[in-house]
């Protein structure tokens, strides 16, 4: 089965490429069919956990966690492909786009099923560079470049850790190799820190987040959902490996413990907390909807990191589930923005408005997505955030809990921003004529919407898999009884919550219908304090939505300039080297050579 999937993937990459050369649209449909086939194929692997297959120098094995992550990724990839046929004319290399899309898909799936460390790294890098080449077909080359460089920082650290591990332990198997560090906290700390770095960069954890808004904001609209919903989650898998497979809690067992968390892990969690706060604050500031969503990915990456690093009954389950919830919600939100951009040509919130009157289904998709993203019941995002909160308050990690609370409430602010500025408010006359997104696109988006809703109402479907992962890791599994999700310090029945919510809604709906019917008036027919304004754009509140709040931190330094300065410093060092050592004068080189000869001779004579 596994072999078939791998061969199918490789064949389909070539097939999609050749087909796209002939006619880009066919290639786009090919990506749709291929990713659907991949989704079906991988979902069939659920039963064959433990099966291994070697493909040349790559070794794969089916694990529950790998299956779980692959399903998430494939879902996101699959739904994004619904948009492909409509975007082929915007790309200058459509064939390359389709082929690289499938290559990155193969890379990510391979990553989750990797059995040995080399396979892990190879798949990781393949996914990175292929997605980088896709990002460059969007609006910005700089963004693709920053994406690659930041990823490279993480990848190289991880490569270092992997090679050191292989060298030290003598085995490449992921499950066996890390055991070596049980007795050596110093070396283990080095490997742990280096290994998780690629996960941190990929998830956009605080000082490494700079690529994320750039890349997500300027990637082709069809690929931003994959970046945010899919590829970022590769980082979560690395975080999982470095805390669950790498015996981090045992290795750091004799370190300073803070509420049961060893200091190195706590430090990483704090970084996650900083990401939550930072991502939230920056998201509130953005004017471009995609950049806003990108910063929200930074914040949500923080939740996932904290959750996974807790490695306990509640927050760990929450972290893993949040991977899915955020993937689904974020992909849906990005896709909705893509649909808007397809019709209007922009994602700038200050230029849009009133889209709900032209694209109501897209609006609903976005609404459900942000409800889930903000962690409001009855959508999936609530369950995972709730589990993380319960876990944090159980351990008494108060600073992280503060950050989590801030990110949670802050998310109301930023997710409401596009809702209000893009979909609600005044409709500009220039968008008077636009139509609802194409039905094919709507199918893709509505699939995700349905998933968000289902995850919120019956989260136990997913939590069952997570509980199994927890059992495999030997930690207390999350408790599931029917529709009740229970933890040590609280339980929730999402189906009941949904029912009660529906009941309340129904009551009020009846009340509303019983009361006298309202008269429909235009949007411009509003109370304006006796001012007469006839331009809808002027009546649209889209600029600096949270101006008073933004003013409080607008002068805070940004991180990107630090990296720019570093890059400049490197260039200066290069210039320095060029002047000193690569100067086009024979005399200097002779001087250096003679100087060294004399130094060595003198040194040797001593």
């Amino acid at each position, binding site marked *: 089965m596994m072999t078939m999937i791998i061969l199918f993937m490789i064949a389909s990459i070539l097939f999609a490429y050749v087909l796209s050369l002939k006619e880009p649209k066919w290639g786009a449909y090919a990506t749709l069919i291929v990713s659907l086939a991949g989704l079906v194929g991988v979902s069939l692997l659920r039963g064959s956990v433990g099966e291994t297959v070697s493909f040349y120098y790559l070794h794969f094995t089916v694990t529950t966690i790998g299956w779980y992550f692959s399903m998430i990724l494939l879902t996101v990839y699959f739904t994004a492909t619904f948009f492909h046929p409509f975007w082929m004319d915007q790309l200058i290399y459509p064939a390359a786009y389709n082929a690289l899309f499938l290559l990155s898909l193969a890379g990510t799936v391979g990553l989750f099923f990797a059995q040995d460390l080399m396979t892990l790294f190879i798949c990781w890098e393949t996914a990175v560079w292929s997605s980088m080449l896709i990002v460059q077909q969007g609006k910005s080359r700089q963004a693709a470049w920053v994406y690659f460089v930041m990823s490279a920082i993480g990848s190289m650290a991880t490569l270092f850790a992997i090679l050191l591990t292989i060298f030290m332990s003598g085995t490449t198997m992921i499950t066996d190799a890390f055991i070596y560090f049980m007795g050596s906290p110093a070396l283990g700390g080095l490997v742990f820190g280096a290994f998780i770095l690629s996960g941190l960069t990929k998830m956009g954890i605080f000082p490494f987040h700079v690529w994320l808004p750039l890349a997500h904001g300027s990637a082709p609209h069809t690929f931003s959902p994959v970046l945010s919903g899919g590829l970022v989650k590769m980082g979560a898998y690395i975080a999982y490996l470095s805390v669950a497979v790498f015996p981090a809690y045992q290795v750091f067992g004799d370190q300073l413990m803070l509420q049961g968390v060893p200091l190195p892990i706590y430090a990483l969690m704090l970084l996650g907390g900083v990401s939550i706060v930072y991502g939230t604050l920056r998201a509130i500031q953005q004017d471009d909807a995609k950049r806003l969503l990108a910063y929200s990915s930074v914040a949500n990456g923080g939740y996932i990191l904290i959750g996974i690093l807790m490695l306990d009954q509640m927050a760990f389950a929450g972290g893993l589930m949040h991977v899915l919830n955020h993937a689904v919600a974020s992909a849906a939100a990005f896709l909705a923005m893509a649909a808007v951009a397809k019709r209007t040509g922009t994602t700038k919130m200050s230029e849009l408005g009133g889209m709900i009157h032209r694209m109501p289904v897209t609006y609903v998709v976005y609404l459900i997505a942000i409800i889930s993203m903000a962690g409001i019941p009855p959508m999936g995002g609530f369950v995972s955030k709730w589990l993380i909160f319960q876990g944090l308050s159980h351990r008494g990690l108060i600073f992280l809990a503060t950050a989590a609370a801030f990110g949670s409430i802050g998310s109301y602010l930023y997710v409401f921003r596009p809702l209000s500025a893009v979909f609600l408010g005044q409709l500009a006359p220039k968008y008077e004529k636009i139509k609802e997104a194409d039905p094919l696109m709507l199918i893709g988006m509505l699939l995700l919407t349905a998933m968000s809703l289902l995850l919120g109402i019956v989260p136990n479907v997913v939590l069952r898999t997570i509980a199994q992962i927890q059992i495999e890791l030997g930690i207390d599994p999350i408790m599931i009884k029917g529709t009740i999700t229970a933890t040590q310090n609280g339980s929730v029945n999402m189906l009941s919550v949904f029912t009660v919510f529906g009941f309340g809604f129904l009551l009020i709906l009846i009340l509303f219908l019983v009361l006298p019917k309202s008269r429909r008036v235009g949007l411009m027919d509003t109370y304006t304090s006796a001012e007469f304004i006839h331009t809808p754009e002027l009546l649209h509140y889209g600029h600096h939505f949270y101006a008073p709040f933004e003013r409080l931190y607008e002068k805070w330094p940004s991180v990107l300039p630090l990296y720019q300065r570093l890059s400049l410093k490197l260039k200066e060092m290069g210039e320095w080297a060029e002047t000193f050592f690569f100067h086009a004068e024979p*005399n200097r080189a002779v001087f250096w050579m003679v100087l060294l000869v004399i130094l060595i001779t003198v040194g040797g004579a001593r």
Partner: protein
Amino acid sequence: MIQFAGIALILIGIYGLMTTKHMIKLIIALNVMELGANIFIISIGFVAHGLAPIYTADLPNQAFSFVDPLPQAMVLTAIVIGFGVSALGLVVAQNIYKKHGTYDLSEIGGEE
């Protein structure tokens, strides 16, 4: 003694290479350096009161007092190579002169 002469010549050559930017002078300095190296090599094979390394009838009387022939062979080759390089260097220098009207590298401006 002769070794020191060789080393001195090498050092003089290096001094020239480090200080001048005149192409002809650079080639001269290079030649001085090579000369020094050659003298040094010869000195390696030198045996006081040694004979030419040719087997003759009265060989048994002078056993173990040959001059080592190998360094001489090396020097011959090295001289030829040095000659080739100098010739090439001079041609290059002359062509540069034709193009730029000067032998001084600093006047041509090495960068671009």
